[in-house]
């Protein structure tokens, strides 16, 4: 199976899917390959913060302006991915009043609305705050759901003719003299290898940019910075809480539906496939953020995770390569590299759309096309469909008959029917794909109960025909879950862990011996209908 396209995009994060959508809206054929599932990289491993730009206002006004512009655009095109919570920049005595004054001034210059609050006003709005605060400033921060954002960009691109292959990894670049003319890829589930010919290859792999570039003998200055985050079991505040001080570690708390996400740290990493949240980072985050919320130490933490930011290290040729401070669009053909290869990296989730716009502008210019970008004006397909907790509850209540309302996941209220709908769509290929597309396993028990139930459903649908059966998938899931749980095991989380271990290792007697080296076993195609062997099983 060899394929051909105009623009081949590598990377299924916000930037890659954003580029696919932008190209599709401008009528340019594209094909996107992603080695895992959507949002496997930094797009799925960030704090879910819809920046107002306030964080950058003092030190990086350009980035601040970019943020507030994109903030307004995203509220328009993806309202269903956003919780417009507002945000506070909170000054503790040690932060001093000077930075606060600078902050308000800089926000004004960047076009970010501010509302200064007295300590009393701020405490009335957020009673969890440290009563010693000397003031706060309200800005239009919010929470964003990157999973829905990325999946919707992908769906919209596909519906407009783009092709997307997940679990498909680039193994080498095809070179014809001075040109890159396509890529060799491998399906990571079937192991099938094939080639994709393309006029342009866009490297939108974020932190993996150099991994792709090495295939062409190239390298860019990219520092890999790990940021770790913690999720609490309950929502601590109504609004995003930031420390009003120069950006540092451990100074943001983002509320998201029923939980809060605490961040973050920055540590250099070398190996992109192997990094973890250390106990020291966890202790640091809890200690540092409890300055803002004194009761934080008594909270239950459900999970820790880390993402890797691709930070641009140097700007040796800064003219047309650097479109803006935060991200870089590099046309390797202009720098003695092969023609037809473009890298877009750096940046942040907030600017994914702008990064896509600049990339596609560049390709259009080289193709001699004059089609303007419209991603800032065209809402995503799900816009207008409520995605809030309230909407989910209302939908659940409307579901009849009762059996359809059966919940697989009690923590996050995921009905069996929602999973069945995803299975019918036929795009998921492994357990984690299902988990990415629902809220299954994201609640208090972190999948301890619902994944067993999900596997029962998959067995019923004959979709677990792998060696070792569904228990192998279950064990691999528990192993994956462990990475997020282990760093926060004390207090109530440790109680929960004893429960889960008692169930799976104790009562179900699952043991280490059958673990396979391959991390994610696939789901078999199976049938959408009830297997014959269960036919007529109604009493």
């Amino acid at each position, binding site marked *: 199976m060899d394929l051909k396209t105009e623009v081949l995009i590598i990377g299924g994060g916000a930037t890659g899917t954003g580029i696919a959508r932008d190209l599709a809206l401008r009528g340019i054929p594209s094909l996107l390959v992603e080695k895992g599932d959507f949002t496997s990289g930094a797009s799925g491993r960030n704090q879910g913060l819809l920046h107002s730009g306030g964080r950058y206002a003092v030190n990086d006004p350009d980035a601040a302006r970019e943020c507030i512009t994109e903030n307004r655009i995203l509220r328009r095109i993806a309202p269903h991915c956003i919780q417009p919570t507002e945000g506070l920049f909170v000054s503790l005595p040690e932060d001093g009043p000077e930075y606060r004054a600078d902050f308000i001034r800089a926000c004004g210059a960047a076009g970010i609305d501010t509302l200064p609050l007295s300590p009393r006003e701020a405490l009335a709005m957020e009673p969890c705050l440290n009563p010693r605060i000397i003031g706060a400033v309200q800005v239009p921060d919010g929470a964003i759901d990157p999973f829905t954002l990325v999946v919707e960009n992908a769906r919209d691109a596909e519906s407009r003719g783009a092709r997307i292959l997940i679990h498909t990894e680039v193994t080498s670049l095809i070179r014809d003299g001075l040109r890159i003319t396509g890529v060799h890829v491998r399906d990571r589930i079937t192991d099938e290898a094939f080639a994709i010919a393309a006029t342009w290859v866009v490297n939108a792999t974020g932190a993996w940019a150099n991994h792709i570039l090495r295939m062409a003998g190239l390298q860019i200055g990219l520092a890999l910075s790990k940021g770790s985050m913690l999720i609490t079991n309950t929502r601590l505040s109504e609004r995003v809480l930031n420390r009003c001080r120069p950006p540092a570690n451990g100074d943001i708390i983002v509320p998201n539906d029923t939980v809060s996400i605490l961040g973050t740290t920055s540590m250099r990493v070398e190996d992109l496939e192997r990094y973890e949240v250390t106990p020291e980072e966890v202790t640091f985050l809890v200690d540092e953020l409890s300055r803002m919320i004194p009761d934080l*130490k008594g909270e239950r933490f459900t999970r820790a995770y880390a993402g890797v930011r691709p930070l641009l290290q140097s700007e040796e040729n800064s003219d047309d390569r650097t479109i803006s401070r935060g991200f870089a669009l590099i046309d390797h053909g202009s720098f003695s590299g092969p023609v037809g290869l473009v890298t877009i990296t750096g940046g942040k989730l907030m600017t994914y759309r702008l990064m896509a716009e600049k990339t596609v502008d560049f390709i259009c210019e080289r193709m001699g096309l004059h089609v303007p970008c419209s991603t800032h004006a065209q809402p995503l397909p799900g816009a207008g469909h409520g995605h809030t907790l309230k909407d989910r509850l209302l939908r659940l209540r409307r579901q009849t008959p009762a059996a359809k309302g059966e919940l697989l996941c009690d923590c996050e209220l995921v009905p069996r029917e929602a999973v069945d709908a995803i299975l019918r769509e036929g795009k998921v290929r492994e357990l984690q794909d299902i988990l990415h597309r629902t809220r299954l396993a994201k609640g208090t028990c972190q999948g301890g109960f619902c994944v067993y139930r999900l596997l029962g459903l998959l067995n019923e649908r004959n979709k677990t025909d792998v060696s070792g059966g569904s228990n192998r998938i279950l064990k691999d899931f528990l192993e994956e879950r462990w990475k997020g749980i282990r760093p926060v095991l004390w207090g109530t989380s440790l109680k929960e862990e004893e429960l889960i271990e008692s169930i799976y290792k104790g009562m179900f007697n699952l043991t280490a011996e059958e*673990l396979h080296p391959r991390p994610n076993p696939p789901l078999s195609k199976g049938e959408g209908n009830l297997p014959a062997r269960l036919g007529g099983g109604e009493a």
Partner: protein
Amino acid sequence: MKRFDLIVIGTGLAGLTAARTAIAMGAKVLIVGKGMGALTLFGNTVDILGEIPPGTEMAEEITRWIAAHPKHPYARTGWEGIKSAVTAFQELFLPPYHFAASGRGNSLLPTGAGTMRPTWLIPVTMAAGAAMIPAETLIVGFRGFKDFQGDTVSLHLKCRGVTLSLPRYGMEGLTAPAIARLMDDTSFRERLGESIRQQMAGERFIGLPAVLGLRDPAAVLKTLETVTGARVFEIPMLPPSIPGTRIFHRFREELIAKGADFRMGHSVSGVMVQDGRCEGIHIPNPPLVAEYRADRVILATGRFLGGGLWAEMDRIIEPVFNIPVFQPGERGQWFGERFFDPEAHPIHRAGVVTDTDLRPVDAAGQVILANVWAAGSILAHHQAIEEKSREGIDIATGFLAAKRALAS
């Protein structure tokens, strides 16, 4: 103010066993606990030591095993201690709903994940599971009952499986207690048996989720076996556990009948310690705090799940008496790198260290409180989850603690 011979803190299997042992010896007993303990989560069968392979003689192997594990709670009780405690447990469950070992060693029973699991004493409702032959077994699941996935069980056990619909009583998704209560109704289980019979293709065994009634499980078993003509067995599944709830209810019934003061839903808010002895406990009864005095106290509050141990970010504490807890290293060392590490996670060895009489001791080995004994999973140096020794430790140490306490 009331005065008792013995106060037992903890209403799990260890505490219940201790209280019952003391009552049987004629003591005046108060038993107090926050909840129903791990019994109602995972209580199904009685494990002694699942590590010992089925087919080998338990008595011989366990003696050798204990000799190799001198810090283990079993080293305090010995095989003789385990045996007499377990025998006393069996005497509480008289036929028709009784517990028995199916041989001189461990037996393997099917689980809700379709795996086989070694155990020692089996309730009559699960006994046929040890004898089942996959090709002659039908696994029955219930539509809408998500805590038992029949297809998972039948696929892994290589049996045939069916999923039946139960008449819904206005419920969205069935729970184990709800189905168990339905089973207590004779006409319901007769109809269910008939539905199963219609699905059978000559099977001699039928496996069902462990929900065969709370009041009279043996009668439920009998009805289903009579109607289907096959041997029926329960399969342990996700919590809550109906078989464990039966065990709890039986103990409570016995304790109350024999005059124990049984206080459920109360936690101990304080202890009265004087001159190296515990004189009594405080139980909050808002707006008052009640005071109970006793000559002896048994601490059987369980591990982290039960609240007997509590992990702060940097240390593990015992909240009732603040007894020093053995802990394996710093927080970063509590757990292994993988969930399924070949070795049990180091934290499972944490717990209260005792002298040979089960009295908690400090790091120097000195008894901390002269009239306090500890029993059950709160004890250090066992790995109940991996060893499959949960009930054995609870029963054997609960029994021994009561004997030692009343002998003093």
